[in-house]
C-alpha cells in the first residue's frame, strides 16, 4: 500500500512492503513499529535507529510529537489523494468556521461584534480558565456571522462560541 504523508510544503511517499520493509522516498528500509502499553506512544526501529513518539489523530490527519518537535501530517493513500486533487484543496479557506471552547471556563470579554470583519490572528474571545486569561484567535480572515456567548457566561469544553464565515 502506498501513502503520501504531507506537512507544510513537504511530502513523503511511503510504501508498505512485505517483511517489515518500507519504501521511503524510493529507499527500502527495515521497520519495526510497536505501540507501548496500549497508549498512543510508539517505538520505531528504522534500520536499527531507535525513535519514540507520541502519535495522535488531529484535524489535519496525524500529529507526531518526536523529540520535542511537533509535525502535523496529512496522510492519504493514492485514491484519497486523487479524489482531493479533483475537488480542489482550498475548502479550508471558505465555508463556516466554528470557534469552540478548548476547555471549560468563563467568558471574560467578546471583543468583536456580529458582522465585523476580522483578520487571521485577531482575538475573538477572551476565556478565563485555570487561572489564566486565554485569547482565542481567528484562524483565518473572515466575517463574524454569529456570537453565541456573552461576557460572564460559563461555557463547557467544545461548546460553540462564535461562527465565522
Amino acid at each position, binding site marked *: *500500500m502506498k*501513502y503520501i*504523508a504531507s*506537512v507544510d510544503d*513537504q511530502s*513523503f511517499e*511511503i510504501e*508498505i512492503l512485505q517483511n517489515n520493509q*518500507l519504501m*521511503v*522516498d524510493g529507499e527500502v528500509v527495515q*521497520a519495526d*513499529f510497536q505501540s507501548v*502499553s*496500549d*497508549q*498512543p*506512544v*510508539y517505538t*520505531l526501529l*528504522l534500520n536499527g*535507529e531507535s*525513535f519514540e*513518539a*507520541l*502519535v*495522535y*489523530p488531529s484535524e489535519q*490527519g*496525524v*500529529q*507526531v*510529537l*518526536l*523529540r*520535542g*518537535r*511537533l*509535525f502535523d*501530517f496529512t*496522510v492519504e*493513500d493514492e485514491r484519497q489523494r486523487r479524489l482531493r486533487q479533483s475537488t480542489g484543496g482550498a475548502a479550508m479557506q471558505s465555508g463556516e468556521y466554528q470557534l469552540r471552547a*478548548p*476547555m*471549560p*471556563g468563563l467568558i*471574560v470579554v467578546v471583543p468583536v461584534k456580529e458582522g465585523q470583519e476580522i483578520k487571521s490572528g485577531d482575538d475573538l474571545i477572551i476565556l*478565563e*480558565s*485555570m*487561572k*489564566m*486569561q*486565554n*485569547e482565542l*484567535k481567528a484562524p483565518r480572515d473572515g466575517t463574524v456571522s454569529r456570537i453565541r456567548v456573552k461576557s460572564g457566561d460559563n461555557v463547557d*469544553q467544545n461548546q460553540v462560541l462564535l461562527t465565522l464565515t
Partner: protein
Amino acid sequence: MFNKVLVANRGEIAVRIMRACRELGMNTVAVYSEADRTALHVRQADEAYLLGPAAARDSYLRGDKIIEIAQRSGAGAIHPGYGFLAERDDFAQAVEDAGLGFIGPRPSAIAAMGDKAVARATVTAAGVPVVPGTEGEGDLRDEDLLDLAPAIGFPLLIKATAGGGGKGMREVRSLEDMPALLESARREAEAAFGDGNVYLEKLIEGARHIEFQILADSQGNVIHLGERECSLQRRHQKLLEEAPSPFMNEELRVKMGEVACKAAQAVDYLNAGTIEFLVDKDENFYFLEMNTRLQVEHPVTELVTGIDIVKEQIRIARGRKLRYTQDDIHLNGWAIECRINAEDPYANFVPSTGVLNSVIPPSGPGVRVDTGVYAGFEISPYYDSLISKLICWGETRGETILRMRRALEEYRILGVKTNIPFHQNIMDSHRFIAGSFDTRFVEERFSMDTPEDEKEHLMTIAAVMATLVAHRQGQQAAQIVRRGKRDTSNWKWVSRWERMNR
C-alpha cells in the same frame, strides 16, 4: 513545641511539605476540596479533612475552616505552601491568634511586603535600590498616572498594587496606548485580587530576573542561600529557573546577597523568603518585590546548597537557631528546574485538562521530580496547570543541560498536553545554552520552530510514524467492516482511537 503540621495547600507543594514533615518524624494533616479526594497529598497524609467544593474560595481559601480543622485535629502549626493563603497577613494573624504556629514570616512582615508601596518605601529607607516608579505615591487615578508617566519614561509597566504572578500587569510603549491598557489592567486586577489599584514602574530593558533565597531565624540571624536565575518567563510567569545564575559573579553575589539580607531585616523577617531583583546589563540591580513564602523554584537552591529549605522552615518555626552561618553556604554544581505545565505549547500555551492516562517520570542520577499527580488522576480546570517540577543537578551547567535533555525526553505524560516540548526546545536553543537571555527572551526571541539542519531527518521519521499509524487505523477499520463484528483487539484499538479523537 508542635509535632503535627497541617498543610494548607494542594498539589506538588503540599506533597513536598508533607515529605519534609514525615522525614522529621512529624505527623501531617491534609485539607482538600471535593475535587481532590484522591489527590496525592490526601493519600500521603496521616489525616485528611474535607474543606468544601472544588472552587478555591470554597475550599483552599477558607482560612476559618482550616484553622478550625487544625485545632480539632491537634495540629500545632500550619504550613501555607505558596499561593492560596500563603501571603495573607490576616490569615497568618488568625493562625497565631488561635494559638497555632504559622510556618512562615510574622504577619507584620507579610503585610509590609504585600503592599508594594509600603514594601518599596521600607526597603528604600533601608538603603535598598528600587526601580523608578509611582509605587510609593499611594493609589493614583488614571489622570495622575498619565501625568507621571512621561517623567518615568517609556517603556514602562502598569502593575497591580495587590498583584503577583503577572496578573493585572501591562507593558506600555507610548502615552497614547496607556488609557486602554490601564483599563484592562485594572479590570484584571479587580478580578484577581478584588483590588483594581495599579502603579507604574520603569521597564528595565534587557533585564534579568534574579532572586535571592533568604533564611531568618527567631534569634535575628539572617543568611542568604545564593541566587536563582528566573528570567525565562512567559507573560511574567516563570517557566524555568536555575541556580546559580549564568550572569552572576562572586563579587556581585556578595553585594546583592547583603542587600537581600538588609531588605529582609528591614521588615524584621522570620523564616524563608525571597528577594526578587531586576538586574540590567551593567550589573545595576533594583529591588522588585519580596515573596514572603516558600517559592515554587526553591529546589534549585536546595540542590546547589545541600540545604533542605522546607525542613529549615519547620526548624525555624520550632524556634531553633539556624544551623548555618553565611560562611557555611557554598554553591556546588548547577541545578535547573523546568516547570511542567498542562498546556499546549503549540497552541498559545492554552491550558489542557483531563485524566492522566499514563505517567512515566524520568529518574536516575541527578534527577528530582516534585509532583502531586499520578497516572489515573485528573487535571481539573479549578487550579493552576503545574503538573510537576523536573529538577536536574550536574557538576557544571553543561552537564545539567545534557541531563535535563535526557530527562525531558524520558518523561512521558499522556492524557493532557504538556509544555515538555517547549522545554526541549529551550534546552536546544543556542541562546539558552550560551546563557544570553533576559526576561523577554521567551516572548520575543524564542520560537518552537525546529532549525532546518536537523528538521529534515526527524521529519522523515515522523512521516513514517504518521503513515504507519494511519495505515493501522485504516486496516483496523476495514477489518471491522468486513467481519461485521468487533473482536477484542479491534475493540481495543477503536476505543483507544476514539478516546484520542475526543
